[in-house]
Structure formats: C-alpha cells, structure tokens
C-alpha cells in the first residue's frame, strides 16, 4: 500500500496560516473502558467542506458530540471557531448549525412551527429558510402539515433547514443525506457548494464514500476511534491506483517494465493491470498503431479507501456504503 501523504496531526495553520475553524488536540473520549475516540488531532480550515469518513461506530458522531458539548472529553481539548469546547460551548452553538444523525423533530408541531420554535431557541433570525425550503422542495403546504405525518426524507429536509436557516458560520452535519432521495441529495450538494462559495465551513460526517468524493475538499478517515489520515480529496484521487485494460492488435508488447504499472495480466490480446501515479506518461509509453482499445477506470474515493483499509479489520470496510 502506498504510504499516506499527510500526517493526521498536521495543523492547518502550518500550511495556510489560517486559524482553524475546528482544532482538536489529542481529543479522547472513553466510555468506561471502551475507547470511543483516541487522541484525535485535527484541524478544519475556514471555508472548506471537510468530510469525516468512517464506518458506523468508528467515532464520527462521538467526535461531533464532543465538539458540541453533548459529551465531555476524557482528555485532550478542542476549539471551535476559536472557542474552547469545555468553557465556551454555548457561544459555539450560537454560531454553529448542527444536524444530528437520524434527526427527530417535534411530532406535534407543523413543519413551519417546528422551524419557528427552533429559530426562536437559536436566537438568530432564520435568514436562509425561504431559500433552503425552496431548494429542498418544502412548500408552504408541506410545512403546514404536522411533522408526525412526514416521511423520513421530509424530516431530514426539516433537519437540514433547521441546521442552516440561521446562516451559521460553521455547519456540522452528521450523515446529512440519510433518507434523502437522489434528487434531493443533488440539491443538498448544491447547497453545500454555495456555502463553500460564501466562505462558510462545513464539517460533514458520512459513511457514503461517493458523496464525500462529490462535495468535500478534504477528508479525514477515522477508524475504531482513531484518525487514520487526512487528505485532500483531489490528492487522494490523484494518487490512487487505476484499473487499466488494453487491447492490442497482434502481439502484445512487454509492459512489465513500464513505471507505475503493476499486477500485469495478459489474456490473448488483452492486458489488464493497475496503474499508480500519473496517467499521461503511461499513455505516452504505450502509444502504438497496434493499440486497439484502452480503458482507464476513473479513480473513485471508494477504491482509494478500500485500498487504504486493505489488510485491516474487515468490519471497518464492510460498514461503508457506496
């Protein structure tokens, strides 16, 4: 396996000079003897969408809940928006929007009453509500219905709106697309793109690899309560190996010495292999009039992730959705 390019402990300040929106230092949470989170050191930069990726039970929600004061750290510490999570938690929540995983909203209220109530509690005007409701297709008629009559997807939409309606400086979203249909997922991704364009920061937990690849700038991979790596998503995709399939007319040239090409298998005129590194030098090297067909499968984060986990605990990989 290729060594991971970045150290989980690298603070963002050393790379960009920006003050991290979220900064944890050796953050640890134990439930009795069970270690839910161990020695988490992580920086989330201003204006980025940071994907916190890992299978169910890896420690994603524990991290979020510790940052927001639902849980108290066993050791270590963290700041959010420059404020200490242990002493300034209320102010952190004032500036943050949070979508809990599997959100439950007050069943007896209508959608609009629930959003009004939560905005009142937040103490900030819901500037973005109209726009969010429109993009998530929450019409006035829908909002007048009681939450108890909503489908899971509609509840999730209400969850997204309540987290973002007050235009928070930081959005912390725990598996936000759970229950959303593909069309609404696309709308949600577009909302995140707009937040990024406006300089908002989003901390996004997911076990769905494809959406992290779609929306995130960087990804932290967490496993069994430990942060395994932090990567630029583009970098991760660029570095990962690609599956290559080449069909030749006539005899197959010897490809074993080509740099970056591994696991070469020949079946008649067809060669399959994996390619590590840049594509362009490889294409130049195999250019030939006898080349009949060439397929290079696009890099996906999922494969990079599975590759990263290769040889690890199988549960860690099986818990991930595609």
């Amino acid at each position: 396996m290729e060594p991971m390019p970045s150290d989980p402990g690298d603070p963002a300040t050393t790379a960009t000079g920006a003050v991290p929106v979220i900064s944890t230092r050796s953050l640890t949470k134990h439930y009795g003897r069970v270690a839910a989170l161990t020695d988490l050191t992580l920086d989330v930069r201003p204006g980025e969408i940071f994907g916190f990726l890992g299978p169910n039970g890896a420690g994603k929600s524990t991290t979020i809940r510790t940052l927001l004061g639902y849980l108290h750290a066993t050791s270590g510490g963290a700041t959010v928006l420059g404020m200490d999570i242990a002493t300034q938690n209320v102010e952190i929540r004032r500036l943050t929007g949070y979508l809990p995983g599997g959100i439950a909203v007050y069943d007896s209220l209508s959608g609009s009453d629930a959003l009004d109530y939560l905005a009142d509690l937040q103490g900030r005007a819901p500037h973005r509500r109209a726009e969010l409701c429109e993009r998530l297709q929450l019409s006035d008629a829908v909002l007048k219905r009681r939450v108890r009559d909503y489908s899971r997807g509609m509840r999730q939409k209400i969850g997204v709106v309540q987290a973002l309606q007050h235009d928070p400086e930081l959005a912390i979203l725990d598996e936000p697309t759970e229950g959303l249909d593909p069309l609404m997922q696309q709308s949600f991704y577009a909302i995140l793109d707009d937040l990024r364009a406006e300089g908002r920061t989003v901390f996004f937990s997911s076990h769905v690899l494809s959406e992290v690849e779609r929306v995130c700038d960087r990804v932290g991979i967490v496993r069994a309560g430990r942060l395994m790596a932090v990567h630029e998503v583009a970098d991760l995709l660029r570095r990962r190996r690609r599956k290559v399939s080449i069909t030749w007319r006539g005899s197959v040239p010897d490809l074993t010495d080509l740099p970056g090409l591994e696991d070469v298998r020949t079946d008649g005129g067809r060669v399959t292999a994996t390619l590590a590194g840049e594509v362009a030098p490889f294409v130049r090297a195999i250019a030939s009039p006898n080349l009949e067909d060439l397929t290079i499968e696009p890099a996906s984060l999922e494969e990079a992730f599975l590759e990263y986990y290769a040889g690890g605990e199988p549960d860690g990989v099986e818990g991930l959705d595609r």
Partner: protein
Amino acid sequence: MNRALLFRTWSWLSLRAAVIGVALVAWGWLMPFLYGQFSDVIRDMVTTNPVFEQMSSFGSGNLFTLGGTLTLGTQHPLVIAMLGVFAVGTAATAIAGERQRGTLEVLLARPIPRRTVYLTLFMAVAVIIGVLIALLLVGMYVGAASQSLLDELPAGQLPLVWLNGVLLWVAFASFSLAASASFDRAGPAIGLSLGYLLLNYFLEILGSLWTDAAWSQEYSLFHHFQVAEILDGNADPLDLAICGLAVALPLAYALVRFPRRDLAAPA
C-alpha cells in the same frame, strides 16, 4: 430561563392543565359540599358504630370539621392522581422523554446552557402546579361559600395553604425532574418518581390507619401539608421547611448532575 422554551412547554401542556384545572375546581367545591350536607349524618353514624370513625378518617383528614374535610380532599387518591399527572408524569418525562424521542438533540444544539433548560422546565411545571393548587383552593372557597361555611374558612390563611401545597407538590415534581435528567429513557424516570410518590403516600396512610405505625407519617411529605392546622392558625413552619428542603435537594442535585452528563447519540 429561556422564554421560547417556557412558552412552548406551557403551550404543549395547556390542554391537559385546563382539563385537570376544571376537575380540581369541581373537586375543591365538592369537599365543603359533602361536609355541609353530610357531616351531621356521619357524626351520628360514628357515635353509633366505632368502625365508621375509622372509615371517616383518611390520612390526616376527617369529615368532622371543614378543615379536616379539606385536608382529606387534598390527600384523596383522586387529587393525588390529578396533581401527579404533572408532578410525576410531566416532570419525569420532561427531559428523559425528549431524550428518548430524540428531540433533546435539536434542543441542546441551541445556545442554551443545560442548567437553563432544566430551570426553565422546572419553572414551567412549578407554575402549572401553583395554578392547579390555586384552582383547587378556589373550588374549596366557592364550595364553602355555597354552603355558608365561610366562617369556618379563614380566607387569610389560604395563601399559606396554597404555599404549603405548592411546596409539597413541587417537591414531587423536583424529584421527578431530577430523575428525568438522570435517565436516557422515560420508563425508569417515571418508575422511580412514581415509587417516591407512592412511598410517601403509603407512609402517610399506613400511620393513619394503624396507630402503632403512626410514626411513619412523620417520614411522609404528605404529613407536612395539614390544611386543618393551617386554617386553625397552627401552621408549623417546620412543615414548610421540610417541603422546601424536598424541593431544593433534588433541584441542586440535578443542576450539578445534568450539565455534567454525557449524552451519547440516541439509539
């Protein structure tokens, strides 16, 4: 205190409170009515058969004086059930119920300290109990007036009766809310709170029915709300102190415990 949470909580409880409030007014009215209409009959029955004497007393109350009748009215199982709806049912589910339903998540995501959440819910329940006790006393006063018994009901003592009653029932609510803040599910909180209420009730009733166990009444909070003694001008400040302590101790515990609790993701 958080205004939005307070008013929303009252809004949720308003229908239940209105129904119970009307029932308590009717119940309060019924006590002087029973005393006015039947006390002579009962007194005659007691003089002819000692068994009736035992039956005409319940807890610290009796049917021989208006004060005794009103005391009986405040200790009757029906009143216990009606006020218990809020002091146990509402208070024990106020936090644990929201936690169980998952709605505590979005509440605690707001910039409200947990202590403020707790004190707001405490205040919401305490005020409702205060209003309900007042309605019970209004019913009693109207009932006494309708039976021309106001000379036996000194109005000047009613605020003290109200205060003692509120302290008694807020003590149960305080215990229940503390239990609610200590569990992730409503079941254990309700069970513990109901057990606390029933234990107090059992100690009071046991002592009144069995003279050898009269000592047990001292350990019951119900014994420290004696309407007859207050109306007679013999209120014991210790009763108020004990009920006040029973309010304060669970409140203090919860204000320390709730903010320190780890709230893991709901199952």
